[in-house]
């Protein structure tokens, strides 16, 4: 009757592009897209605070978000449209190490750990695919870090070797 696309269909297209989920069966991707919830943030709204155990991942559809450290007022990292933030908290129980704030009117889709786990129960291959993607992302990060490694930088010494954990 009409060509208007639903949020679910939009989510599905986005989910299919996210490396953590791109290798999955369409059925699993559909379920993830269905379970995601859309949220909006005004500039200055806090998405999560350091120390929280909010266990959610966010895909930014529109807008901009900044990550802060408690000790510094300047943002240490920025995220923009089509970025997928915070996915590691979907596994394990780690606390947030950064505070994430919206820097502009932002729309994102949120996937919570509860739902992620329910999908994992139905499609166990999600675990493997997710871990593979996470490991290759971390590896890639360290590769870049090594390529730009500055032997004079003191603080860098304690952080190098992340992929050897």
């Amino acid at each position: 009757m009409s060509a208007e696309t639903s949020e679910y269909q939009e989510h599905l297209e986005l989910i299919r592009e996210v490396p953590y989920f791109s290798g999955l069966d369409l059925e699993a991707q559909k379920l993830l897209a269905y379970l995601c919830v859309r949220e909006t943030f005004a500039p200055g709204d806090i998405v999560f605070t350091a120390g929280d155990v909010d266990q959610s991942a966010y895909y930014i559809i529109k807008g901009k978000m900044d990550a802060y450290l408690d000790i510094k007022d300047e943002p240490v990292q920025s995220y923009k449209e089509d970025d997928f933030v915070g996915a590691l908290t979907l596994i394990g129980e780690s606390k947030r190490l950064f505070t994430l704030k919206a820097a502009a009117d932002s729309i994102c889709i949120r996937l919570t750990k509860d739902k992620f786990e329910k999908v994992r129960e139905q499609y166990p291959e999600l675990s493997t695919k997710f871990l593979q993607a996470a490991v290759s992302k971390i590896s890639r990060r360290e590769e870049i870090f090594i390529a730009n490694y500055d032997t004079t930088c003191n603080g860098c010494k304690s952080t190098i070797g992340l992929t050897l954990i």
Partner: protein
Amino acid sequence: MITKRPLIYWVKNSNFKLQMIVLVVILFTVGARLVPLEMQKLIINQAISMRKVDLLIRYCSFYIIAVVAASLLKYAITTLQTYIGQESLAKMRKELYAHILTLPLGYFRKANPGMVVSSLITELAPAGEYVGQSIAVPVTNVLTLITFAGYMFYLNPTMACISIAMYPFVIYLVPKLQKKSNRANKQRVDTTRNLSSHINETISGIHEIHGNGSYSIENRKYGNYVDRLFKIRIVWILYKQGIKVLNNFFQNLGPFFLFLVGGYLAIQGKFDLGALVAFLSAYEKIYDPWKELMDFYQVHNDATVRYERVMEYFDVEPEFTLEPEGREPVKLTGEIDIQNLGFTVSGGIRLLKQINLKLKPGEQLALVGFSGSGKSTLAQCVSQLYKYTGGSVKIDGYEVDELTKADMVQNMGIVAQEPFIFSGSIKDNLLYSCMAVLDRDPDKESKMPTRDHMIESIQQAGIFVDVLRFGLNSIVDPQKEKELTDRIVITRENFHADFGDKLADHVEFYQDGQYLDHSTVAENIIFGSANDKSFAGKELATNEYFIDFLKEAQLETPLLSLGRETAKQTVDILGNLPQEEVFFEQSPIPSEDFEDYKQLVARLNHSTLQDIKGEDRDMLLQLALNFIPGTHKIVALPSVLKTLILDGRQMFFNKVSVEKPDTFSFFRMSEYIPSQTILDNILFGKPKTDHPKIQDAINESMVQLLIMEDLLETIVELGMGFKVGTKGDKLSGGQKQKLAIARTFLKNPPIMIMDEATSALDNRSQNRIQGLLETKWKGKSTLISVIHRLDTIKNYDKVAVMKAGKLMEIGPYDELIAKEGLLYELIHGAK
């Protein structure tokens, strides 16, 4: 112990009175069965041969009375034996279940829940059936056999011998055939299993088959299995039928001899005709009890085998007695003394080694350590969940090993790592621990916690707001609760005056002329709720008046189309998933109707909207009318349709105001809306998001307003009636944990064991509960708290650090930190 009882125990201990009645009834039955035979003889010999009609009528009357009586008595026996059997079965089930519940925790780690279920439900059933039959069937049939045989001997001993001569052959041959049939049956089971695993493999590898085009190979493999099964099944069926045929053959051979010998004797005049007829009847009647005995033999075998298997499976001794004998459960103060405690599990693995530890009543201990260090195990040994294998744990001088369960639960509250919440209401779960203790107490009513106590404990555990929320989400009937709903309307006014502007971004208020994205399509059209049942709920989609209106407003076809699209998409996503709460939260199709819609979608396939008729059409319309664009994101609601619906709302109002003025109450600020939750009534709208921050803001405003109206306790009480679903499905992990903490706080025992009890809570709740433990319970309850995150342990009286099953250091926090030992390492990382 129940598992040591043989099956015959249940026969001996079945309802004795009923068994005796059965025996008496059986005697009458057997007698009643004999009468027709004798009558047959008399009818032929006396009535017919002497041509006496009055005798004929008299004997026939006796005959029919005996037949009717025999049937009625047979029915009575069946009823009695069913009752006896089912009564024993119920007893078996209850006693076995009670036994299973007391088995050690370690047992359940290995046991398969499916096996427990099938044992209690299906496997025991034949045993019950057997107990029911155990007296009635053999006695009835043996007696009948003997009586008939005796009657035959009384008629003519020679002929009786001839006709019984067949039976030894049958008794010899049938078991032989049965054995062969069993063997074939076993082969059949094996082959069927192979076949199904093969099918399984083929289906999972279907992409490979398509890729290689290897259809003929797979067909051949499958064909081989099917052919083998074909042969085995034929053999099996032949044996099975062979037994029947053999039985029948011998049965039919009887009359042959009877006619030959009996006929000869009759011609000779040594045997009268009536006796011959009676003989034939008796012979035929022998077959039934014979068959029933053979069936009974099978039931006996089957029941014994299954019963023994079940009992073997559960043949484990419970570790603790439940109730103390000859004394009341002890009252403890909570002094704990652990000496040389050791716990070794099968395989010689030592989980705890030589633990020494003392706690005064009211002292609080934090158990920390690396994962796998045995800290939970230690807590579980103290709380009698595991039976330690060495050393001693004494509470107030009593050895925990020797205390009964009743002693322990009187004095101890446990919050498990993954607390279990049972189906029922919040209140049921909150009172669970108290109920268990008070269960046998004669004045438990008066000892139960009051409403205020319950509210206090849910506040302490931090689940108050959640419970309030459940209360706000309940629907009340204004006719029954007039006072409450009136005050809710007042609260609504206050809300709009105090919070209306502040929450305007997050709440969609009921405003005329605007499409409500967070309400259903039906609510958008009616913009009110129905007072008449025939327009409410599921009735609306089939209400003729309403359908006519939809047609008039040009809404029917677009709504059907929306319904079809929604049904198709939802079934596509959720089609093969289990019916769990999470999956259906955002689903336009409620889980209970899902199967129906799944079938509907399969039927729809390619049919056009115009083709869809009858119930299918109602279902689609129903789905469309319940569609909420703000929640159901699977399908987009076209903006054209929104405009049409808004026009429809106006039309509907005009039409109904004239034609059915009292049928609907439209959304008005001054009126309670019966079909909506308390929250929606106060908001006079719907929240747009369930984001926690917004929910918090709304909750905060509600608490303030409800306190002002003195409604807070009333609403919380409604919330305590919230049904949590099976396994507490409808609660989040944090809510479950808080509820478990609340139920222990409510019980307020002298000893509390908390095993990572706050692990699923956010920092704030964790700190609050910690604070409470320090202020409210320190000095009153001895606390052993297993802690994973170390930021809350500073104020414990003692901290114990465990590693590899050993207690490495124990003492106040500051001392251990100053020592820079293991605790220091745990917190600051290895140096």
